[in-house]
């Protein structure tokens, strides 16, 4: 028998990194006795090491809490812990559609950050009721009144009755639980006898159970043994296991309207499940699928190559395993003259790229060379056809190209007044167009229209460095626009090095070319001959440096007893060469490929 809708509250938590989302979630779980005290560990919901370490949530997690409220009734609270990063904006928007309210957690010492804004607007778009929670009020620097005012100013929601808490000490947590019951709405409607209509909120691969699907029931009832169909992908499955998270899996017989839970059904790959899809019964389907479905599309691409070419097969294995659990990440084999065999991979954004790269390096212990991140350019050919360019190395002959379009983003940056000038300069330098500039207290909020290719490069690092870490940054994909873009090649000893090719704006090419050549001159060790390092567009050289020949590299003393020792040194040298890539006659150390692309400007 399903729980009455009036006793269900489904909600998510919106917060910036470090503002206390996971700690609050832990407290809610703890206070309601959902997990025995001895089983508690910090950040119950962030299961992956990388999530714990970076303090971010990558996959949606969920927990069902029984809460005996002050009105004498016991409520079921379903918390969906959504991914907190813009790379996963679509996943966030789907999670938000699966619940009716949000807790907006803001650090009472820090205030609103750019990331909070994006997610809170997603919540508002999903018609959420929002309960404001000011965290860390135990700290001396806490200014709850000022921050509440800031929330009203910036976000435009009423923060006068915000819950004042310290997730760390536990102060105010009971108030949060009461506010969830009193101020957040129950699921709007739902007919347990109607044809099944459920949203696929998330899915992941479990080595024992196969793919686990997180669902929110809108209408109808899902029972163990049911035969279901995914309306967008057409996949048909039997429900083997049905349950809820507390946060450990607990089997249930059925899930009714308003409820959130999981099922498994011998689904082999996460790729077979699409976030936002509608799940219905095969025999008695609902008429229309839920609105808003769109398959997630990678926007940032880069090449991943093993440092040791012998590890290529290991890399393939690790990528295939990661892809089992991450449908949004695409890959295909790539061959580079400089770097050998590797994979061209597509990601939802830069963080997604970093997370995947870190996981390969850490969980599979493979050292990687990452080539310059690139975006998808639309190439309009003179014959009227349009190509998508994922890799600058594949750029067709410019004489056949009519024009190029590049993706642009709408970036929101919150920055203390003192650093505003630097931020504006950075955005201008990156071909940004200012859309808005407003003040919130002593902080400025700037909105810029920026080319994505200028952002994937090292924008975030630069922003952090010019603002000493005080700026927060978020972006949304905007549109494709034509611009004067060219492929810049780097030639080392007159040979083009494909892995160093980049797409740049013509106006910035000279500067970038010069910087790149100068950097490579420092990164490539002197060799037995002099080496020209050039940047070129088409056939035209736009920058040039010369690495002079090695002058002295000889062992002063070498006698009978040294033969063995010096030979070992040479062998060590040769082993070191493994870390170099032979390019024509030139050996280029691996770190050159990575460092050359990081510009200090």
């Amino acid at each position: 028998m399903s729980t009455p809708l009036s006793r269900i509250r489904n909600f998510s938590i919106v917060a910036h990194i470090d503002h206390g989302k996971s700690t609050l979630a832990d407290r809610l779980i703890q206070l309601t006795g959902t997990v025995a005290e001895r089983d508690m560990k910090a950040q119950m919901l962030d299961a992956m090491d990388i999530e714990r370490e970076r303090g971010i949530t990558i996959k949606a997690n969920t927990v069902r809490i029984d809460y005996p409220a002050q009105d004498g009734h016991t409520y079921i609270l379903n918390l969906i812990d959504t991914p907190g990063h813009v790379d996963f904006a679509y996943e966030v928007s789907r999670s938000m559609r699966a619940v009716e309210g949000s807790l907006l957690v803001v650090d009472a010492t820090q205030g609103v950050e750019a990331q909070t804004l994006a997610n809170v607007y997603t919540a508002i778009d999903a018609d959420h009721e929002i309960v404001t929670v000011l965290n860390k009020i135990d700290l001396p620097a806490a200014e709850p009144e000022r921050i509440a005012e800031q929330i009203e100013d910036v976000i435009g929601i009423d923060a006068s009755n915000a819950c004042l808490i310290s997730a760390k000490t536990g102060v105010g947590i009971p108030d949060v639980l009461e506010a969830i019951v009193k101020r957040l709405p129950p699921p709007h409607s739902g007919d347990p006898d109607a044809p099944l209509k459920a949203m696929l909120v998330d899915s992941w691969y479990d080595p024992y159970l196969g793919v686990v699907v997180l669902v929110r029931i809108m209408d109808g009832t899902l029972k163990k043994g049911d035969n279901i169909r995914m309306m967008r992908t057409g996949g048909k499955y039997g429900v083997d296991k049905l349950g809820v998270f507390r946060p450990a899996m607990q089997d249930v017989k059925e899930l009714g309207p308003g409820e959130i839970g999981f099922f498994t059904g011998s689904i082999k790959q996460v790729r077979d499940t699409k976030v936002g899809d509608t799940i219905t019964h095969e025999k008695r389907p609902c008429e229309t699928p839920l609105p808003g479905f769109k398959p997630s599309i990678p926007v940032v691409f880069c090449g991943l190559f093993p440092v040791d070419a012998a590890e290529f097969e290991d890399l393939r294995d690790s990528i295939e395993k990661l892809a089992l659990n991450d449908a949004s990440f695409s890959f295909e084999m790539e061959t580079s003259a400089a770097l050998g065999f590797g994979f061209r991979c597509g990601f939802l954004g830069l963080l997604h790229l970093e997370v995947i790269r870190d996981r390969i390096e850490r969980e599979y212990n493979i050292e990687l060379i990452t080539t310059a991140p690139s975006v998808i350019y639309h190439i309009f050919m003179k014959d009227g056809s349009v190509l998508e360019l994922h890799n600058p190395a594949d750029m067709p002959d410019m004489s056949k190209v009519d024009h190029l379009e590049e993706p642009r983003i709408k970036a929101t940056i919150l920055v203390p007044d003192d650093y505003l000038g630097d931020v504006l300069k950075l955005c201008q330098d990156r071909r940004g167009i200012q859309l808005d500039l407003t003040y919130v207290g002593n902080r400025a909020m700037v909105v810029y229209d920026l080319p994505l290719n200028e952002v994937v490069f090292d924008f975030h690092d630069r922003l952090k460095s010019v603002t000493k870490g005080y700026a927060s940054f978020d972006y949304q994909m905007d549109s494709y626009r034509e611009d004067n873009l060219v492929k810049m090649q780097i030639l080392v000893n007159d040979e083009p090095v494909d892995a160093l090719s980049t797409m740049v704006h013509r106006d910035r090419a000279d500067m970038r070319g010069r910087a790149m050549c100068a950097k490579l001159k420092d990164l490539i060790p002197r060799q037995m001959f002099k080496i020209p390092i050039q940047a070129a567009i088409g056939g035209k050289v736009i920058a040039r440096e010369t690495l002079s020949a090695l002058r002295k590299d000889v062992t002063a003393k070498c006698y009978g007893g040294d033969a063995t020792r010096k030979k070992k040194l040479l062998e060590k040298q040769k082993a070191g060469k493994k870390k170099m890539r032979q390019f024509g006659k030139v050996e280029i150390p691996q770190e050159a490929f990575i460092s050359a692309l990081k510009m200090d400007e």
Partner: protein
Amino acid sequence: MRFENLWPGVLTQNNLENWQIGGFGLYVHWPFCEAKCPYCDFNSHVVSHVDQGRWARALADEIRRAGAETSDRVLGSIFFGGGTPSLMTPETVSTVIEAARDCWTFANDIEITLEANPRSVEVQRFEGYARAGVNRVSLGVQALHASDLKRLGRLHDVDEAKTALAVARSVFERVSFDLIYARQNQTLDDWRSELGEALDMAVDHLSLYQLTVEEGTAFWDRARAGGLRGLPGEDLAADMYEVTQDLCSTAGYTAYEVSNHARPGAQSRHNLIYWRYGDWLGIGPGAHGRLGTATQRVATVAWRQPGLWLQHAEAGSGLESRAFLDVSDQAGEYLMMGLRLDEGLDIERLHRLDSTVAGPEAVAELVDLDLVLWDGPVLRTTAKGRLVLNSVVAALLP
């Protein structure tokens, strides 16, 4: 039982190929010093007392053991290295030389070199060494500036060195001395004038080494801790090397090896054995030896720690290991050693060992870069190539 076969597989009747090309010599290592120099990574130890008689017997026994298996060879040279061999008594030196004389026929022009510190105490022994058979000394002068000698941890001063040289010149037929350059804060002009002075003092041979900071030395630790400032960069070091070649050749000294310069006929015959990849026996703590035929070559290594070596030597053999070198190792060593010489190496001999070393394409590339010359059977480095020899060798290894 004592004369077990130390060199299994070595066909002593049929060693023509190697010893005719490279010669046959004996290296004797004396591992003791009065003080450890901060740049030195050789096997040297400072101890309060050495039982000379016991050491002399152990060295002589080791020589006899090796000699039993190679008695048909003609010995071209003996070299006492260290450590500080001039801390050996003349009696010890004599015992060793006599043991060698018992084992092998000495070449008519046998070269017997002893490395010596240019200190008055040791100079007093020169006559005794000469009587024992030593006919060449190599003096560790190292520098002709008082402050630099101190920095290098040397116990002698400039005047002592000059006196030692004068005595050596009167006692021995042949005299060489060492200098270390590319020192801290040394300018090109400093070195030019110091080398000029050295050439005026020189007899027939000079070893001129650029200071190298080796792992496991006091200099290494100092450099890592951020000390040892003012060492020359690559360009200054290269200029200094070139100045060295110019001044020496003007003065009539040919650079027959990377760091060695000699008047005609005065090359170190013993060291040429190493560079021509001939056969040599290594006797004493940490000494290495090479002995073999065209296809099989034994590499020996003696126990490095002096006390340990003595124990083993007295118990029957001071060798810690002996192993066959495979042909690619032999070829690699021959390449590395041979290209140090002005005369170059025999590329046909090299290819008989391993034809994949110094392949025609790799050689042609280096010829194009004016780093090596390939002239009939001879492969040798140009002056420019010798200055980047490590890279040249690396490029020629398969």
